[in-house]
């Protein structure tokens, strides 16, 4: 999952704004997908989507803020750039608190918008990369046998082989074999690296 195609999702009720933005981003070589309202996007949403959302804050029916809430409920990590009008700053501040990456005020300069979109896409890539790495770690952890998992936990806690052997009432030799299997399955040679890897996914594991 290295070089996934990123798409800019435009959610904008105004046809002219939507159409012109689509043309503009396409002419810049971006993959673009326009939606004319929040409901249409929500229906289409999947966690496989990569890229960012350019979201109009004011829309009839479901507005941008509501869509952001709905996406947060779905644990979406798609970065959102809110497009605001004059006088919408308080709304934009609320949106930022809810985790939006940025906002831009209409009418905007192309450079500013593209810059923000680039930043959002980079953030998306980062998040996706680290997410991929974590998922790899979790996948590896899942390949461990219960005994191996237990021994890994004790290794991370800093117990020496001898202590582990005594406490588990097995031979020190057996501990050593398990230990090398854990290192092999987790794809590392260093205990320090193993500790870092496991701690990085601790929250994800705890969440399960």
């Amino acid at each position, binding site marked *: 999952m290295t070089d996934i195609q990123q798409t800019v999702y435009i959610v904008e009720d105004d046809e002219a704004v939507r159409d012109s933005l689509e043309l503009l981003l396409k002419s810049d070589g971006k993959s673009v997908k326009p939606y004319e309202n929040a409901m249409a996007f929500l229906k289409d949403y999947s966690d496989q989507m990569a890229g960012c959302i350019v979201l109009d804050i004011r*829309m009839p029916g479901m507005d941008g803020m509501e869509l952001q809430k709905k996406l947060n409920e779905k644990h979406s990590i798609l970065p959102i750039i809110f497009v605001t009008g004059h006088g919408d700053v308080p709304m934009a501040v609320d949106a930022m608190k809810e985790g939006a990456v940025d906002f831009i005020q*209409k*009418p905007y300069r192309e450079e500013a918008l593209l810059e923000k979109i680039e930043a959002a896409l980079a953030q998306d890539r980062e998040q996706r990369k680290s997410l991929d790495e974590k998922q790899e770690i979790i996948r590896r952890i899942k390949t461990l046998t219960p005994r191996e998992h237990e021994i890994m936990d004790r290794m991370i806690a800093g117990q020496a082989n001898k202590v582990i052997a005594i406490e588990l009432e097995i031979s020190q030799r057996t501990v050593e074999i398990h230990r090398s299997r854990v290192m092999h399955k987790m794809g590392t040679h260093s205990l320090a690296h193993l500790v870092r890897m496991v701690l990085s996914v601790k929250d994800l594991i705890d969440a399960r």
Partner: protein
Amino acid sequence: MTESVSANSEVTVLLVDDNPQNLKVLYETLKDKGYRLLIANEGEKALDLAHRHQPEVILLDIMMPEMDGYEVCQRLKADPATADCAVVFLSALDDLQAKVKGFSLGGADYISKPFQSLEVIARVKTHAQVIRLERQLQARNRELQSDQTRILNSISEGIYGLDEHGNIEFVNPAAALIARSTVDELVGRNFFELHFPDSQESDTLPVQATCRQGVAENQRNIPMARVDGSRFPAEYRATPKLDNEELHGAVVVFRDITTDLENEAALEEAQALVQEQRDQLAHTSRLTTMGEMAAGFAHEVNQPLTAITNYARVAKRIMSKQEAPDMSLLAETMDKIEAQSHRASEIIRRIRRFVKKPATGKEILSVPALLEDTRQFAEVDMRNNEGGIELMVPDALPDVLADPIQVQQVALNLIRNALEASRSASVVQPVKVSAELDGAGCVRVQVRDHGVGLPEDAEEKLFLPFYTTKSDGMGIGLATCRSLIQAQGGDIGFDRPEDGGACFYFTLPVAGEERALSAANGAE
């Protein structure tokens, strides 16, 4: 009256004779008839008694020493106090000449001596009755005359009686006061020369037609001169004075309307001020509305501007391509830019027209077009409304006569209120705007929502200034709406629909209908 006379009450009879025997006989004859009887045996005494008691009847002997009956009679007739009493001469002189002389001096009757008592009684009775009736009549006349004089004197309007040449025959005190003169000075002067001194011979003067042709006149604000040469604006009515269909001049009733005109001018000024303030308030209220909608408008204008910026960038990219630029795509993009700039200028035009200061005045309006325009206007504000606005207007609706901006202001106010009420109640039903022809020559526009509804005391208070049910309201909107609609000759009000929400309506008079126009004027 006849009864009282037959009873002879209050009737005084004076008996005058130098002969005591005669006096005695007369006294005996009349004493039981109920008269008050006075007796004199000589002329001077008779005159004195008559002057003091003013008897109805005097039986007067002709042949008397000192002053004879003729002289007594003459002097009685000369004294206004006794001039009206009936003098009945008594004399043995039964000749024609003596009788004629007696009548010529004012005598009423003649009784010859020796008299018959029945004759004396009958004649005294007759004359007493005549004099009594005459005196009553005179008293009544005096009463009437003084009534008339009192009335004419107390009228504050000036009254002239003119002959056919315009010469003043009668003046009441008010007329003299207005002309700054006296009644005596004015009588005999010529009305036209006095009050219209600068007029030319050829001019047709006020009241002339009444004096000459018997045509009644009624005019206002006519400049008239006073005796001192100053002028005053007058209102007058001239009525021909007719006697058996023959013209005898005119009666002119007039007054000085200086104060009236001043009051009218002040009233007009006050009305103009009220109108101006109403327009000012309406304008302020429109500006307030625009202020409330500012964010919406900024958004509305920013949409096409954003699109234009984007399209322009796209166009530049197309042109900067190394290989041959796609001219048809470029043209398409340019067309889009043009369309968006029209869109932006249309929004700005609409705002400008709405906040334009002076009301444009009444014109013939198409209600569906006005409502469609207003709906687009209001949509700026309804981005958070799920239901939106639904417009239902029949095709065949007559035009109305009204001020377009003020009507739009009212419609916008009602629609925005309805949107707000719907929003507060989080309802999904749209705000329904409809128009129809009502029975009374008016177009009725209705704005119906399913929102929070109206408070209980809305009937008494809703259209009053400073009454509001909104936490951030000023209470100006509906009060202004009412004054604006009334100025169009229409009506504004609301109903409480059974299934909740509120329904506001206003009416506008159909253009060209007499009834509608007069109603419009009546409301001014």
